[in-house]
């Protein structure tokens, strides 16, 4: 056992560092500093958000030019044609710098790979390089008011009209729709078919007439996701991915990549709360000297490091050219709740001052206050805690599925509630 790079990995790491040193600003070594830099998702105010997006686009262009934007992407679309382990090395190194690529993750991580599998060659050449270098941003139009966890339950109507499709209905929670240039969408083309059989998948220009994007104000007060309304939106049949009725299959390609794409969010972990317990006082002195505090800290430490070493196990499998086991399926489930618990406990330690949110007055700026709010989204987005437990139980442990009526009856005969 060792934690060293092999020669090829070490060479790659050197190249990555050279690139980052030359083009980005390094963070101070303390991990808490990384938590200080609020993710753009939590920025409030329109101007701050526009500026953050511009900066990110400039950075993404540089990254793409150097080949690091799409390490796993094939060279023909501007990628590096690299290995998963190289991707991991890049991510590890980039964490040490003040840069943000969150805007492009859904496209590069999920939607691009979907187009690679299901798209036509001319479309791949036309769209993928610009997706990679940040020139064009893509969003994922999946969830609807009546279908989130149960994605196959969507109702968005897709009706064929000659060489075109006409879309009517509503999407919701669409991250980035307010600045996205393109989107990928799944819609119901045959309501009388079985639920999973009547879907068709498309990509579209967000400027197509009939699309209306309305930002939704979030818990945190900022707006990163949206309602998107479709009113007789006409798109050519050439923008269909996969056959008519194969939308579920195509969606699975997107969702399979989701787990790989959703990385660990920076900051807010054991290290941040450990830092403040050495400053804050409780009834019997410094928080870190209080035995209840110490017991809780130990729990979070073993969760945090347990996840880190779990990742190391997967990386080891990757670097040996093997497929990692299912162990990483625990990652978001553990991370999200840990973040919520750590945040909440940190505020308890701050006691009466704990609910102050403004950056100047809150401890460690306001990472814990923001963490309290943001962690709630983490437990929902990209598969809720409950759905992730179902997945572990059924796909990893092989426990029986529940009996499901929605698999045997046509969609338009299924009950639907709120």
């Amino acid at each position, binding site marked *: 056992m*060792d934690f060293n790079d092999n020669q090829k990995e070490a060479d790659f790491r050197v190249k990555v560092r050279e690139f980052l040193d030359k083009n980005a600003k390094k963070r101070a070594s303390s991990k808490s500093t990384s938590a200080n830099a609020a993710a753009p998702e939590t920025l409030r105010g329109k101007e701050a958000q526009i500026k953050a997006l511009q900066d990110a686009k400039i950075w993404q262009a540089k990254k793409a030019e150097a080949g690091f934007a799409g390490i796993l992407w094939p060279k023909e679309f501007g990628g590096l044609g690299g290995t998963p382990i190289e991707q991991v090395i890049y991510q590890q190194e980039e964490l040490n710098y003040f840069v943000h690529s969150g805007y492009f993750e859904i496209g590069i991580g999920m939607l691009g790979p979907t187009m690679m599998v299901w798209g036509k060659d001319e479309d791949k050449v036309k769209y993928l390089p610009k997706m990679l270098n940040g020139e064009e941003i893509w969003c994922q139009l999946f969830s609807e008011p009546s279908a989130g966890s149960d994605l196959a339950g969507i109702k968005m109507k897709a009706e064929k009209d000659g060489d075109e499709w006409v879309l009517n209905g509503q999407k919701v929670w669409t991250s980035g729709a307010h600045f996205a240039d393109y989107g990928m969408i799944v819609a119901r083309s045959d309501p009388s078919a079985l639920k999973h059989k009547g879907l068709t998948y498309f990509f579209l220009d967000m400027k197509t007439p009939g699309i209306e994007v309305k930002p939704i104000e979030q818990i945190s007060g900022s707006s990163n996701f949206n309602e998107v309304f479709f009113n007789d939106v006409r798109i050519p049949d050439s923008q269909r991915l996969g056959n008519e009725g194969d939308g579920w299959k195509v969606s699975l390609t997107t969702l399979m990549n989701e787990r790989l794409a959703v990385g660990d969010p920076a900051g807010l972990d054991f290290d941040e709360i450990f830092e403040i317990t050495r400053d804050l006082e409780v009834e019997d002195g410094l928080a870190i000297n209080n035995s209840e505090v110490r*017991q809780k800290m130990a729990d979070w*430490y073993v969760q945090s490091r347990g996840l880190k070493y779990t990742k*190391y196990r997967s990386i080891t499998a990757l670097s040996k050219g093997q497929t990692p086991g299912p162990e990483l399926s625990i990652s978001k489930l553990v991370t999200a709740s840990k973040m919520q618990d750590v945040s909440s406990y940190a505020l308890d330690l701050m006691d009466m001052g704990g609910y102050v949110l403004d950056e100047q007055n809150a401890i460690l700026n306001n990472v814990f206050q923001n963490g309290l709010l943001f962690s709630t989204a983490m437990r929902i987005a990209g598969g809720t805690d409950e759905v992730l437990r179902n997945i572990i139980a059924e796909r990893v442990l092989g*426990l029986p599925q529940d009996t499901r009526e929605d698999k045997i009856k046509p969609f338009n005969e299924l009950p639907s509630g709120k």
Partner: protein
Amino acid sequence: MNFDFSDDQKLLQEQARKFLTDKCSRKLVRSVLDNNNNQYSKELWQQVVDMGWTATAIPEEYGGLGLGMLELCVIAEELGRSLAPIPFSSSIYIFAEFLKAYGSDEQKKQYLPKIASGEFIGSFAFPETKGSPRANNLNSKVENNKLSGKKLPVSDGQVADVLIVAANSDNNQNHNSLSLYIVETNQDGVKEKLLDTLDPTRPSSEIEFNDASCSPLGEKGEGWSMIENILNRAAVLFAFEQVGGAQVALDEAKKYSIERYAFGKPIGSFQALKHKMADMYVKNELAKSNAYYGAWALSTDSMELPVAAAGARVSATDAFHYASKENIQIHGGVGFTWEYDCHLFYRRSKLLSLNLGSIRKWKENLISNLEKRNIT
């Protein structure tokens, strides 16, 4: 990065699993559980010795195989899975490690070959009271090279041929008074009495010393720090036993939940149970990863050992406790019977979690070692 066991070590694991599936049946475990005089399985012990497991991490010059601690971790996980009713941890993870770390050349020559060959079983006599061992409640004492006092509980005390005993070497009974001694049990001044404990498959004793002959191990007055070091090393190995036990508890819960029907379906299709088992899986994976890190620190004699060992210990204790208690819950009424095996895991889980000190103590160790690391 190579955060995995080697192919040879994996082969060893495969062999060990096959061997124990064959030789350490539940029937054998129960033969020790059901018979109060059967304090361990002599039959299994002899076979384990013949496999060379007791010699694994003992240097060749002292009659061992000279393999590393990683091999021992692999074996530990398998012993944990099979609930092996043998004094392996006392003799190998603890006694042999004390000798390897602090024994004089002469002491090593005297004991390690016998431990490696299984001729001697060793153990460690530390606590004396119902609570946690502390300077002010350890009364055993050595005067003129004679040991007197009473130790309780001592794991495998009734079958041990030789013990490491923690006793005061002066009258102050403070932090610098504690020293370690090697004591052979086959002498007039040593009396053992078997205790009733939560897990009769791994019995413990009360041992009384009356002017027993003993020889000092390591530096006088350094008892606490030597104990801390060896318990850290043992904690990693215990963590592997716990991880092994937790995995089997999950496997058995899963198997039962697929076979047992209620309300017209397998109980394993009820989400409340599925989510419990998903949580078991999460805890088990975290524990396994933390144990791997402990194995790395142990095998490289890293400065990280105190933190890595405590992390492995806390995580594995939590995982095994959860898996063993929820395994009973998933079994319903039969889970509470002597006949079903659930209780074997529940008992073993609590025993392993207390043997080296409770989880709350190890959480405290973890944080205080993190604080130390932060200062340096």
